[in-house]
């Protein structure tokens, strides 16, 4: 806390406050009340796309990483191919391929069109969610491969020597340590994932980026919506970083502090 009282910090803070005040008074914000509900909805959509795709992607990344780190080649090779393809192609392309490819393939099957799922499959968000999930899975599958390998063999051997069944070794020794090892990486990757979400605006999913574009088109105001957009993304990134710091702090301490 004391650190904040140093002169250069105080000056920087004052400049920051002045900047915010200037933005608030000198720029045009009269459109805000009208678009606020829409923006809230957009933020909400961005957040759940991010949370769901990260969780589902991670759930896929674990078997993908495990298959590559320890699986027989019939599992390792396809997992490796998947990660390579996902990481080697632009996310925008994946989104479009899923939306325009799958999205135009599905209606050709009457049983899909008549199923209860059709009202959902007709919308854009399932394809956005799927593309973001697969993308996250591809990157994190590679990360998890390294994470599984980084757990010292001796610790797994000790578990084996004590008669732990294989699944127990995985869930209680191997996976927890692998995930713990990549928590710092994972935080950064989640921020990257967040910054990839605006791409789904290209297939008509109205998340926060799409809303700000909409404001610009409607009102011809350019900077203000973009500025607000930047603030929103920074706030989300901050939340993600805090969340991961908190998870890291609450977990077991694997090395003495300060080392």
């Amino acid at each position: 806390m004391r650190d904040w009282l140093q002169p250069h910090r105080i000056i920087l803070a004052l400049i920051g406050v002045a900047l915010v005040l200037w933005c608030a008074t000198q720029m045009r914000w009269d459109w805000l009340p009208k678009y606020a509900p829409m923006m809230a909805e957009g933020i909400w959509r961005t957040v759940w796309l991010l949370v769901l795709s990260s969780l589902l992607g991670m759930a896929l990344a674990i078997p993908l990483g495990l298959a590559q780190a320890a699986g027989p080649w019939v599992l390792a090779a396809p997992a490796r191919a998947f990660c390579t393809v996902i990481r080697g192609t632009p996310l925008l392309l994946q989104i479009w391929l899923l939306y325009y490819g799958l999205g135009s393939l599905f209606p050709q099957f009457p049983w899909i069109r008549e199923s209860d799922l059709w009202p959902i499959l007709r919308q854009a968000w399932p394809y956005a969610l799927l593309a973001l999930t697969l993308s996250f899975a591809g990157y994190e599958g590679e990360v998890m491969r390294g994470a599984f390998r980084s757990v010292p063999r001796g610790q797994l051997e000790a578990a084996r020597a004590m008669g732990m069944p294989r699944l127990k070794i995985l869930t209680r020794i191997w996976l927890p340590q692998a995930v713990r090892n990549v928590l710092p990486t994972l935080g950064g990757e989640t921020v990257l994932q967040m910054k990839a979400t605006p791409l789904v605006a290209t297939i008509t999913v109205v998340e926060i980026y799409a809303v700000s574009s909409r404001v610009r088109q409607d009102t011809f105001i350019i900077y203000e919506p973009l500025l607000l957009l930047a603030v929103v993304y920074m706030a989300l990134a901050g939340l993600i970083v805090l969340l991961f710091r908190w998870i890291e702090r609450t977990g077991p301490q694997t090395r003495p502090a300060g080392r």
Partner: protein
Amino acid sequence: MTEAAPAPSRSAAPEAIRVTGLRKSFGPLEVLKGVDLTAHEGDVIAVIGGSGSGKSTMLRCINFLETPSAGTITIAGEPVRQRPDGTAADRRQIERIRQSLGMVFQQFNLWTHKTVLDNLIEVPVHVLHQPKAEATDRAMSLLARVGLADKAHSYPAFLSGGQQQRAAIARALCMEPKAMLFDEPTSALDPELVGEVLAVIRALAAEGRTMILVTHEMKFAREVASHVMFLAGGLVEEEGPPDRLFGAPQSPRLQQFLRSVG
């Protein structure tokens, strides 16, 4: 070559571990070429031999951390069922047998994401489904025995090597094993930490625990062992009571080995 069969004076207690005709190759490298070993209950068998003579390999074949190329392992009268390729045929059986053989490694191998106490009760509680309170009581008294009562809630990274190894021994004991397998338990330790670990092992020997101890500590082996095996060239070159093996070694290789380790 191989010395005469074990002296008849050895224990008449029930057999704890019997190894017969154990062979093990890694690719073209034949590490074990037919090793026999019998440990009766209460025996302390010290296994000595040069680096690369296959001591660890033999120990690891006993609980099937390595798959024997040939030979059989019998634990407390129960042969480990094997497939034709040598691997354990019955997962349940081998898991049960491993639970009855407490293994202690050179590198301790504590689970670094769990506290010392959680290391001890992990398998009793989460695999054997013992009541947590009961396992915790047992773990705490074991930790007190090895002098680590105050470290129960520490993570392994905060312990010295000697403390980690004592915790690893307590973890093995917490399974209430029928026999213990030690693979050079003090080789990774700074010299000043060796004593505290040997003291724990000495106490275990004194209370009549069955153990097989691979070690480079010749003085210690002579002191605690009831029987010593010298491995060389993939075979048991010489074996017998410690006084005879260390006092009057017969084979030239053992004589030379003992000279080289001082």
